[in-house]
Every structure is written in structure tokens, then in C-alpha cells.
């Protein structure tokens, strides 16, 4: 039979009751329909279902089909809307290009409206939208189809997608929201390893440089006031060696006491605990000195931690040299590849969190890259977390809302 006018969309909504899906789908089957797509939802006692059904194999006129479908309204108490289409009018699933967008931050009016308007401007279709958290903290997950994204003249398709991502990140920054955009394929891939760039994410101190400045200011330990290193040197091998040189002659015992100055982000240990309970392996990479990392390792226990160790002489005095090989921004990628080899993991199975500067460039080429509280973005990441709460990254892992609340210990508190 011709497929002309024999594709049906059926939407039904109303009060939820057990057996509704069974009733509707059985009726469609009895009428000779073939369900080719379905989405059903229940929220707060309300029910909705959307079906695309192919009736080309049914041996009855379409008027009768529509009449029978509408008749279910009285039998179920649901409001039914039936649409009739030609097969060609319905897009094939293969044209789809799925992405998952997670928006999170303080709850405020207008976030959904502004995000959806921006997506509309790019001709990006929102397929599903669900709240993961609502209350003081807001988190929403959108499943979007970029298969028909608007490609401006002079742009490639990939370029159009990147432009949309940039605009979405800018919009979310203006709305004081964090946003993570992941390709659906990668989102669905099981992640196994979470790697953190320590200075920029887990330790309250924003950089090794400010730590050194604080030591100098608060303790007067580094004898001569030496000029701060220029920005470009901070994450370099040269900068690190210079930091070590300035510490020459200081007893290691004295220096280690400054570890007390460093405060782990309040939620750091909690995040590591949760990720471990979910079966993730955890790696910490630091271009700072080892006691930065040891502090977190001793408190939380991690699988891998790499940082720089100061050499000391027999009397325990810092020699001003570092144990090789040095770990700086440029070598972190190499270390991450080494960990992946050890764990037999592919890049798409890795989540990496840094601050989005060139010093954490290694986070860019993994399954999910997140810039946490970026001061300036030098690299492309899948997402930006602008809130202070690093545990917010858990909202980007596809964990159902209730499960997440359990993990975060929020269940029953609101």
C-alpha cells in the first residue's frame, strides 16, 4: 500500500494511571499500526506520550484509523491529538546529530527561555528537556539535534556547530550559569577515569605563583624579595625551576609546614569520594610541588597523582633543584596518555577538569573536558563550570536526579 498520508503522530496527555502505555500500544497493534518512535513521560502524576506510527500495512482507510485513535480519548481520559503525514515528511533518524547540553547554576527566571531561543536561532532542535535539580540549585539537561543547524555562508558545518557552542557558553556566562555540551555518542560512552589539574581545580590557591607570594608575604621565608615571574613563565619548565631555585637553603620541614596554607576546595574530597563510589579511577596532575597533591591523596585516596618533588640534601635542606622528570603544563598530556595506557583506556573514556588555560591544555582531547572557574579560556572545552561547587560536574554525567541527590546526601533535606 502507498505510504502517502499513512504516517500518524499521536500525542496523548492527562492524568497518569497504570496500564496507559499498554492500552494505547495494544490498540495500535490491533489496528495494524507499526510504532516507529515513542517517548513517554510521567511527571508529578501527569502522563504524556508521543508516538509516530506507520499504518501503511493496515488494511483500513485512514479516516477510520484516525477515528479509532481519537476514540481512545473517552476510554483513557487522556487528551488525544492525531496528525497525518506522508512518510517523506518525517525525517529519518539517520539525519540526526545528537548532543547533550547541561545547564546548571543558581535558579533564576528566563534561563530556559533564553537558552532555547538561542538554539532556535541556530535552527537546533530541542528533542527532550529535563530538570535534574530544582531548588536553590538548578540543573537542566537538553537533548538537542544539530542535524539541521544553520550554516552561515563561509562557515563549514563544523564551524557552525562550534559557533553555536561559543554563543551558548557566552550566553550562560552572562546568565551566571555553567554549561557543558557533549556529543551524544561520547556522552553515552562509559567513562572510567577522571583527571584533575590540581592547582586550578582542587586547591583553593589559584596558582603556584600566588602560593609562593603568600609564603613570601606571610612567613618572610624566602629571603630576598624577588620579582614575580611573568605570566608566560608560570607554567613553564623555566618557571618551575626558578621557583625551586628560590627555595634553596630552606629546611624541608619548614617548607612543608606551608602546606597548611593550602586549602583544598571545600567539596573536593566529597567529589572524589562520590566519583570513587561510582567506580571511577581518579588521577591528579600538578605542576606544583608534591605536598600540594600529597595532602589530597592522604585525605581522599586517589589512583594516580603526579607532581614535582624538591630535592633535599642529607640534612633535609632544599637544594634548589627538582627531581626529574619535571611535570609542567606541557608534559601533563604525556602523563595522561601514560595513565590511559596503564589503564588501557581510550580518550573518550576520560573526563578531564582544568581551568581552561594553556596550563591545562591536556584536558582538551578527552571524552569530556570541563573548565572549572576559568579566569581566561585559552583552550576549547566541552563545558564551563563557573560556580564554586566542583561537585556540579556530577550533573554532567547523566546520573538520574534522585540518584544524584542520594550521592550528594541531599535527599530529604529540601
Amino acid at each position: 500500500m502507498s505510504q502517502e498520508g499513512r504516517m500518524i503522530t499521536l500525542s496523548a496527555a492527562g492524568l497518569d494511571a497504570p496500564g496507559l502505555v499498554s492500552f494505547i500500544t495494544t490498540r495500535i497493534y490491533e489496528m495494524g499500526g507499526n510504532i516507529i518512535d515513542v517517548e513517554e513521560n510521567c511527571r508529578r502524576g501527569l502522563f504524556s506520550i508521543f508516538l509516530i506510527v506507520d499504518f501503511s500495512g493496515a488494511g483500513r482507510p485512514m479516516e477510520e484509523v484516525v477515528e479509532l485513535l481519537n476514540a481512545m480519548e473517552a476510554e483513557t481520559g487522556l487528551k488525544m491529538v492525531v496528525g497525518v503525514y506522508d512518510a517523506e515528511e518525517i525525517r529519518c533518524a539517520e539525519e540526526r546529530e545528537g548532543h547533550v547540553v547541561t545547564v546548571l547554576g543558581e535558579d533564576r527566571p528566563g534561563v530556559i527561555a533564553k537558552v532555547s531561543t538561542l538554539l532556535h536561532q541556530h535552527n537546533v532542535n530541542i528533542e527532550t528537556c529535563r530538570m535534574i535539580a530544582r531548588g536553590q540549585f538548578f540543573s537542566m539537561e537538553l537533548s538537542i539535534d544539530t542535524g539541521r543547524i544553520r550554516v552561515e555562508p563561509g562557515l563549514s558545518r563544523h564551524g557552525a556547530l562550534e559557533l553555536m557552542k561559543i554563543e551558548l557558553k557566552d550566553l550562560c556566562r552572562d546568565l551566571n550559569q555553567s554549561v557543558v555540551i557533549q556529543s551524544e555518542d561520547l556522552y553515552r560512552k562509559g567513562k572510567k577515569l577522571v583527571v584533575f589539574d590540581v592547582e586550578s581545580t582542587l586547591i583553593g590557591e589559584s596558582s603556584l605563583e600566588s602560593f609562593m607570594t603568600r609564603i613570601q608575604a606571610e612567613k618572610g621565608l624566602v629571603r630576598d624579595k624577588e620579582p614575580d615571574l611573568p605570566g608566560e613563565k608560570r607554567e613553564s619548565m623555566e618557571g618551575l625551576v626558578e621557583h625551586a631555585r628560590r627555595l634553596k637553603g630552606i629546611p624541608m620541614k619548614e617548607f612543608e609546614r606551608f602546606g597548611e596554607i593550602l586549602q583544598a576546595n571545600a567539596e573536593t574530597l566529597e567529589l572524589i569520594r562520590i566519583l570513587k563510589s561510582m567506580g571511577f579511577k581518579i588521577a591528579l596532575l600538578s605542576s606544583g610541588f608534591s605536598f600540594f597533591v600529597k595532602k589530597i591523596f592522604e585525605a581522599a585516596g586517589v589512583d594516580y597523582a603526579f607532581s614535582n618533588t624538591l630535592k633535599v640534601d642529607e640534612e633535609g635542606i632544599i637544594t634548589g633543584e627538582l627531581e626529574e622528570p619535571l611535570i609542567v603544563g606541557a608534559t601533563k598530556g604525556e602523563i595522561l596518555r601514560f595513565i590511559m595506557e596503564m589503564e588501557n583506556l581510550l580518550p573518550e573514556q576520560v573526563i578531564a577538569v582544568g581551568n581552561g588555560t594553556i596550563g591545562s591544555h591536556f584536558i582538551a582531547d578527552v571524552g569530556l573536558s570541563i573548565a572549572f572557574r576559568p579566569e581566561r579560556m585559552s583552550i576549547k572545552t566541552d563545558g564551563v563550570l563557573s560556580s564554586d561547587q566542583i561537585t556540579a560536574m556530577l550533573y554532567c554525567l547523566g546520573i538520574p536526579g534522585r540518584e544524584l541527590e542520594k550521592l550528594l546526601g541531599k535527599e530529604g533535606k529540601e
Partner: protein
Amino acid sequence: MYRIETQNLRMELEVVPVESLLLHERILPHVAGRLILEFKNWASLQNPIIIDRNNIVLDGNHRAFVFRELKIRTIAVCRIDYFEKEAQLRYWYRVFGGAENLHLLREVVEDLDGSFQEVPDRQILERRLGEDPFLCGVQMKDRYAVFSFADKQACDAAAVYDCLETVQTRLLREGMRLEYVPCHYVRETASPRPSKDGEMVIWTPRITKEMVVDCARQKKLFAPKSTRHLIPARPLHVNVPTQWFREDIPMEEINRRFRDFLRGKELRHIGPGQVIDGRYYEEKLFVFYDRRGGT
């Protein structure tokens, strides 16, 4: 033989007969039991044991013991120069939980014909231990004491540790809990491990490399968890199938196979103070690994 050499370090990885190894410490039965289960079920030998030029086992006593128990012929070792300055010998302190005061310890020591004396502070405790190599120390919050055993029982370091083991057994029988802590966690770091309520720390006597060599040669064994060796570098993840060590083939053949096996792997040098597989290593590391998709 597979050699790892740097400017000031030389390690030789090879396979040796298990019977040629000299242990220097008794084993903990529960640790040995777990390893027996592992190796009985054909687990790979992840890391080589560390031995010195005289085949004295410096790290891996339990694995060497278990291989001997399971009648496995050979084992992979890493040979180092024990008397190299960078090979350091430390020891384990005993931390007892659930201690109310020092009375019980004093009673147990005196039952063994030992002497027990409280000292005013930590400095004096450290000085006294420095003067007498067979003296033990004890710390409980702000109280300090030293104790020793009768000469006839404690004629050398291994014998002092044996006496300590007897003390341990008595304290455990009285309901205390025992934990072993590296000596420098208590003594040497900038932020020493804080002393908790009801916690009594026994400072064990210093052990020297010469004492270890003497004991091993005389086939005398220190009590379990006496020595703690910090070696200059540690090779990790050789991952050799245990089956190889069971085969009755000439040593040259198995060593050739072992060398080729290691040559087929990637080797990464990692500085000290890093965490691999959830364990913190104070030493330099040389980690073997297989490159994905490689041979």
C-alpha cells in the same frame, strides 16, 4: 639480564632460583595466605622483589616466602647495591589503640625482666634512644618513657624485636589494637602524625644495614614488620606470568625470555613522590607498560 642505568643508579633485573634467596624477616601469616591464594591461581608477578648482591631480600619477603612454599622454582628480582647511600633503611613503629595509660605496658615489660622508665619529654626520649641502640621508646600524648629487655633475651637487634613481639601479643590479648606506622611519620616529618586519645606509640630500636646482612647470613629472622627499606628506585609492573617460574628450563633460557619480554615493553621513568595504582612511592620509579596496539 635487563639493566636500568642512570647517572647514579644501576638496577639489574633477572630471574634467580627461589632457593638462592636469603630472607631477613618473618612473615605475617595472613599476608602470606592471601598471596598463596593469588599465586596458586596463576596471578602474574607484578613487581620484581628487591635483593642485594648477596641475594638478601630487601623488599618482597612475603612473595619470596610464598614462592618457596608453592615450590615455584624461580622468581624475578631487581638487584641493587644495598650499601649505596640512597638505599635507606627505616623501620616500623607500633601504634596501639585502646590504651588507657602506660601501666599495662610497664607491667608486661617488667614481667619479661625488662626495665621501664618514664622520661620528661620528647627530646630526652630521642637522646636516650640515640645512646642505646637496643632501647625502645613509648609515647602517649605528652607522656614519654623508655624500656629495655634483659641482656640475656635481647642480645641483638633481632632479639629485641622478638621481645617486642611478645609484648605486642600480650597487649593485643588485653584488647588493644595494633597498627604499624613508618618511623618517620612519627619522628621526621614536619607535621608528625598527631597522637590520638587512647593511642600509645612504641618507638622501635634502630636497625642498621649491617644488622640486616648479619641476620640474613646467619639465617636469623627479624620479627614481621621490623625493617622498611627505601630503595633508590623501583621497577614496577613487569607483570610476568607465574607459569614461567614453574617451568623446568635452564636459567639462561628463562633469563633470555625475561629480558626479551621486558625489551618488548615501554619503560617510563617517574620521579619520586608520585602515586601509582593508589600507592604512594617515595622512590624513583621505572614503570613498564604495554603500548596500546603494540606488540
